[in-house]
């Protein structure tokens, strides 16, 4: 040490002597000036790199020096940067210093110079500045080329929010240059005639491919630009380290946002541990492994550094290794000794050190829920007894562990499923019955509800039904009904039985459910009460029974209209007098009937009350068919006796009768109502739902009415239907009807009688008249060649009086009858002048040929008018024209025959074929009575008439 001090002193003295020598020679102080100054540029980073050396130092001499650096822009006088750079200098050591320019170096010429001074306390006398070096000029523009326009900096990468300076260098003085940032024009400052500078502050992130900044000439296609890559770089998040085996640390993090960087400029991550001084470059972007040192290092201080092209970002983490233990999942997990209610779980854990204890957590899941949770301390092997389990139930048990001393994280769960063993059913089945009597037998239908899973304790295999005859207690009958039946039907010879029902699984039998049946089904007549249902169900209540009641049962059908009504029941305790019956099966508009039974001490149910109601009442679904009767001028009666109000979806509370009429006012008992079609009518309200008839009174005669009847419930009225039209009759119409109807009836009766007796009427009133021209008398006359003999024309006759003689209907004979009958003759009642000439004749009239006459003349004597027409008489003389003329005119001429001129007797006009033809006409006067039953009509001259053969009957022989 002493030697070193002596050497140093000697060196300094030598240096001083040298300095003294130099001062003496050069007359100026010794200076340590920077030499060999070189300036280079890094355009991408906009940096000037300076390097120089100090040659005047002695060999191995090392001094602290300060160098003052000046940087000027455009011209040397424009110094823009002055900085003192201190460093330790050795002889001929190359010193370096960099300066980052905010302005791209291409935008302007830069010049650099520097000087140095010793800044060492050992040689305070040397602390003066050396001379400046000459200006070193950095002119990038000169090497740009001959393009007319440049924009700088090229492809610069900056962080979001930073400030950037941009410039363009124009070589053309003729064009105006405009610059744009993403299409928006920028305004800058002119640095020199060729260079314009733009200062961008707080640059935003636009897109990953960078922000386009370009300048272009106002004329021509000249355009140049740059891309400014703006980066968003965040520090890593959620940096954390842990170990699972105390051998390896796993560190994880979430990379921060790193937008705007191209692929080649992506981040890198480095993990550095300060205590050990180790460093590792992470291969992954979100995690890294670190080998735990074997020298039992407990504390770790990690620094995670994320780095990109622009900058670094770091996060730190200090921790104790044992506090960051994340145990491995337990293994060798088993569930053993599984009984109906208990099970044992065993497992093993990975050791995390010789003295470490693990805290393990056991969870027991039943039906997807945690039903037991337990913590157990474990070294290596774990064991846990799970109690109070349900028989025949599936469970899941899982276990996880964590460091008991310094909890960090739970391990993953290890899970096992198991099922407990079965046990005998714990509850008796809920039993109910339905009884009916069929042909003297008692048919009991037993129902039971399946046991719940908790009650069954296993799979129910069958149900045992034991029938105990109460009359003969020693008689038992056992029925075994396999599951899953929920009932059975029993036909019993009598009804006094006690029935025991048990459910059985593979392990045992449940307690018995007992129900008794007796001869009396207990369905006594009980008045039904109405109950109002709600959304929550039916609230039923009943009177408590004074006697011994072991309980109550409420019974109902969930599908009332169905033959299989889905019988439901509810057991209630003896102290209960109300319950709420609710079911998802209840539907609005359906009437549900409830029966409440009391259970006697002998287990015999007996009916207490009946309730009926709707869970929700609806309006009536249909309207009654209304019949109208007793229509009078002032009233009519309506009836709807067939309407089933019970089948409506609500209790029918009454009926509304709507009556339309032309009357402005409503009748008493009704009120005005407005219908849905805005028409106004009168409404009668019938409040009694049992009333099925209604008399509408006080109507107007001969008036038009319309009525419509609809029921209503508590919700409203039935559907709108069509009105029935009715018109009241006139006030007197009933009287008219009483008269006219009998008259019409009588006329009809007479007409029917007349029709039935028409032949009789004809014969009585207007019999047929024989045709005289068809009489056989004509042939007789011709055979005698008596020119005078001719048929008498009626027109020629001047009748004086006519008497028509006919015989009774009962004497009529058939023409075919050969039996001679007494002839019927017409007799002329001669007058006193009947013998002279062609004198008057007697005319016979047959009314059959003259309808007019028949209508006007009744049977009997014909009144004869005394007048006669000569011309008509003349016509009768013509034998050829005789019949025709007779047919047409004889009736008329009848009345024209003058009285007293009749001189002819008439004989029968028709000759029967039995009487022979004309040639065989007998000389004797024919007997008309033999030929025809017609009235004689032919007239024979008096001279030819033989008195003995033609005998005029005396008046007493006339047959009228």
């Amino acid at each position, binding site marked *: 040490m002493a030697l070193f001090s002596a050497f140093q002193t000697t060196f300094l003295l030598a240096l001083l002597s040298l300095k003294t020598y130099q001062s003496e020679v050069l007359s100026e102080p010794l200076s340590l000036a920077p030499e060999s100054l070189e300036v280079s540029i890094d355009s991408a980073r906009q940096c000037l790199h300076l390097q120089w050396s100090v040659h005047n130092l002695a060999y191995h001499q090392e001094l602290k020096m300060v160098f003052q650096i000046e940087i000027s822009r455009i011209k040397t006088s424009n110094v823009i940067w002055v900085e003192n750079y201190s460093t330790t200098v050795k002889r001929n050591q190359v010193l370096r210093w960099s300066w980052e320019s905010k302005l791209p170096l291409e935008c302007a010429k830069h010049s650099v110079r520097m000087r140095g001074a010793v800044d060492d306390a050992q040689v305070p006398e040397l602390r003066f500045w050396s001379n400046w070096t000459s200006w070193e000029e950095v002119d990038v523009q000169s090497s740009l080329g001959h393009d007319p326009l440049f924009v700088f900096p090229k492809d610069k990468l900056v962080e979001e929010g930073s400030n950037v300076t941009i410039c363009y260098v124009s070589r053309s003085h003729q064009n105006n240059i405009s610059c744009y940032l*993403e299409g928006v024009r920028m305004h800058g400052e002119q640095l020199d005639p060729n260079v314009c500078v733009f200062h961008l502050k707080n640059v935003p992130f636009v897109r990953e*491919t960078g922000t386009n900044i370009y300048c272009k000439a106002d004329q021509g296609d000249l355009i140049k630009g740059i891309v400014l890559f703006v980066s968003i770089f965040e520090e890593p998040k959620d940096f954390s380290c842990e170990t699972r085996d105390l051998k390896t640390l796993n560190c994880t993090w979430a990379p921060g946002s790193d937008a705007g960087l191209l692929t080649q400029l992506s981040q890198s991550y480095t993990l550095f541990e300060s205590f050990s001084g180790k460093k590792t470059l992470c291969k992954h972007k979100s995690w890294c492994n670190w080998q735990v040192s074997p020298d039992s290092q407990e504390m770790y201080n990690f620094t995670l550094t994320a780095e990109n092209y622009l900058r670094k970002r770091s996060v730190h983490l200090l921790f104790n290794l044992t506090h960051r233990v994340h145990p491995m999942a337990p293994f060798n997990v088993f569930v053993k000794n599984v009984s109906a209610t208990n099970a044992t779980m065993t497992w093993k854990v990975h050791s995390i050190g010789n003295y470490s204890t693990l805290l393990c957590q056991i969870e027991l899941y039943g039906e997807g829920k945690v039903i037991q949770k337990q913590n157990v301390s474990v070294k290596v092997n774990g064991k846990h007894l799970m109690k109070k389990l349900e028989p025949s139930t599936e469970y899941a048990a899982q276990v996880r562990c964590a460091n008991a001393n310094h909890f960090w994280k739970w391990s993953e769960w290890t899970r096992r499923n198991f099922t407990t063993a079965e046990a005998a059913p714990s509850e008796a089945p809920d039993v109910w019955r339905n009884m009916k009597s069929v042909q003297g037998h008692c048919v009991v239908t037993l129902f039971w509800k399946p046991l719940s899973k908790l009650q069954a304790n296993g799979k129910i295999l069958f149900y045992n039904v034991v029938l105990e005859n109460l009359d003969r207690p020693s008689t038992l009958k056992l029925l075994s009904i396999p599951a899953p039946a929920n009932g059975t039907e029993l036909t019993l010879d009598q009804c006094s039985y006690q029935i025991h029902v048990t459910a059985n699984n593979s392990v045992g039998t449940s307690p018995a459910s007992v129900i008794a049946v007796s001869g009396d089904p207990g369905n006594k007549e009980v008045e039904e009460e109405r109950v109002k249902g709600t959304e929550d169900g039916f609230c039923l209540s009943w009177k408590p029974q004074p006697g011994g009641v072991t309980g109550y049962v409420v019974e109902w059908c969930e599908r009332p209209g169905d033959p299989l009504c889905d019988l439901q029941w509810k057991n209630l305790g003896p102290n209960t007098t109300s319950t709420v019956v609710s079911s998802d099966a209840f539907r609005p508009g359906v009437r549900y009937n409830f029966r409440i039974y009391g259970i006697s001490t002998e287990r015999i149910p007996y009916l207490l009350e009946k309730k009926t109601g709707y869970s929700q009442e609806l309006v009536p679904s249909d309207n009654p068919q209304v019949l109208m009767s007793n229509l009078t001028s002032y009233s009519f009666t309506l009836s709807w006796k067939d309407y089933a109000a019970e089948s409506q979806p609500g209790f029918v509370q009454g009926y509304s009768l709507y009556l339309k009429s032309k009357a402005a006012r409503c009748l008493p008992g009704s009120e005005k109502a407005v219908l849905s079609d805005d028409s106004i009518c009168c409404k009668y309200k019938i409040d009694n739902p049992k009333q099925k008839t209604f008399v509408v009174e006080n109507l107007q005669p001969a008036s038009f009415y319309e009525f419509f009847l609809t029921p209503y419930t508590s919700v409203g009225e039935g559907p709108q239907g069509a009105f029935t039209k009715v018109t009241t009759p006139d006030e007197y119409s009933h009287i008219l009807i009483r008269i006219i109807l009998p008259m019409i009836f009588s006329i009809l009766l007479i007409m029917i009688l007349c029709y039935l007796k028409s032949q009789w009427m004809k014969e009585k009133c207007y019999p047929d008249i024989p045709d005289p021209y068809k009489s056989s008398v004509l042939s007789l006359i011709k055979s005698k060649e008596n020119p005078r003999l001719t048929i008498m024309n009626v027109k020629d006759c001047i009748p004086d009086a006519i008497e028509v003689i006919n015989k009774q209907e009962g004497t009529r004979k058939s023409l075919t009858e050969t039996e001679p009958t007494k002839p019927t003759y017409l007799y002329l009642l001669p007058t006193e002048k009947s013998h002279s000439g062609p004198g008057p004749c007697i005319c016979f009239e047959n009314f059959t040929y003259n309808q007019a006459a028949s209508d006007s003349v009744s049977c009997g004597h014909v009144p004869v008018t005394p007048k006669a027409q000569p011309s008509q008489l003349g016509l009768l003389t013509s034998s050829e024209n005789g019949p025709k003329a007779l047919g047409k005119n004889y009736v008329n001429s009848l009345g024209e025959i003058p009285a007293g001129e009749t001189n002819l007797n008439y004989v029968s006009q028709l000759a029967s074929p039995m009487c022979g033809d004309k040639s065989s006409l007998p000389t004797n006067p024919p007997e008309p009575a033999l030929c025809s039953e017609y009235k004689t009509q032919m007239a024979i001259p008096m001279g030819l008439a033989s008195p003995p053969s033609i005998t005029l009957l005396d008046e007493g022989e006339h047959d009228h």
Partner: protein
Amino acid sequence: MLALCDLGLVLGLLFLSTPAMGSCLDNYQELLGQLQKQADFMQHTSMLLDPYISIQGLDKDGLKKHCRERPGVFPSKDALQQLSRQEFLQILNTTLGHVLHRLRTLQKDIPKAQDLEKLNIAKLNIRGFKNNIHCMAQLLPGSLEKTEPTPTGPGASPSPTPISDAFQRRLEGCRFLHGYHRFMHSVGQVFREWGQSPSRSRRHSPRRGLRKGKHRTHLSSRNKRLMPRGWLPR
């Protein structure tokens, strides 16, 4: 969704193009129809240019007009029409080979995978089209040696002069794609003229079946003049 539709269309065209599956159609008309359809499809700027402009932020009024094809980069329509069919196919094949190479270069400036999807589809399309050109050349008398099927891997096309300036690079890429679509439009028209006037082929007529190596035609001096500038064999 649009990308999926485009992909489906491309795949449909490629599957129509049996050469892509390893063999050539020997039906001239059918193959010509396919080439026409594919050229018509590839001329749409929505296949490449429009997405490129959007991705690179060139969709600004002041920039769009600078995204025009530089003359001489792609053969003009008139020049293509002056070529014989074999020469035309030769030029087409070479040009599309260079387009493929250029697309691989452009791909480097597109950072997002989803933005690359259309570019990759376009590359697939060009490969299929080149295979069809090869098949068409086989159908013409004097099949061209140059029109060989497109290799599945990256080819050894000459790389364009590297441009370090990102802005200039994207402008050039935009101009190139504009020229590419224009070129494919011209190609489609030439193919259509083939279909409209089959006798127009002045020197050659289609033949059926493959004929290899009999009449190999090399690029004429005129063809060389028509080669894209900077792509001439060095």
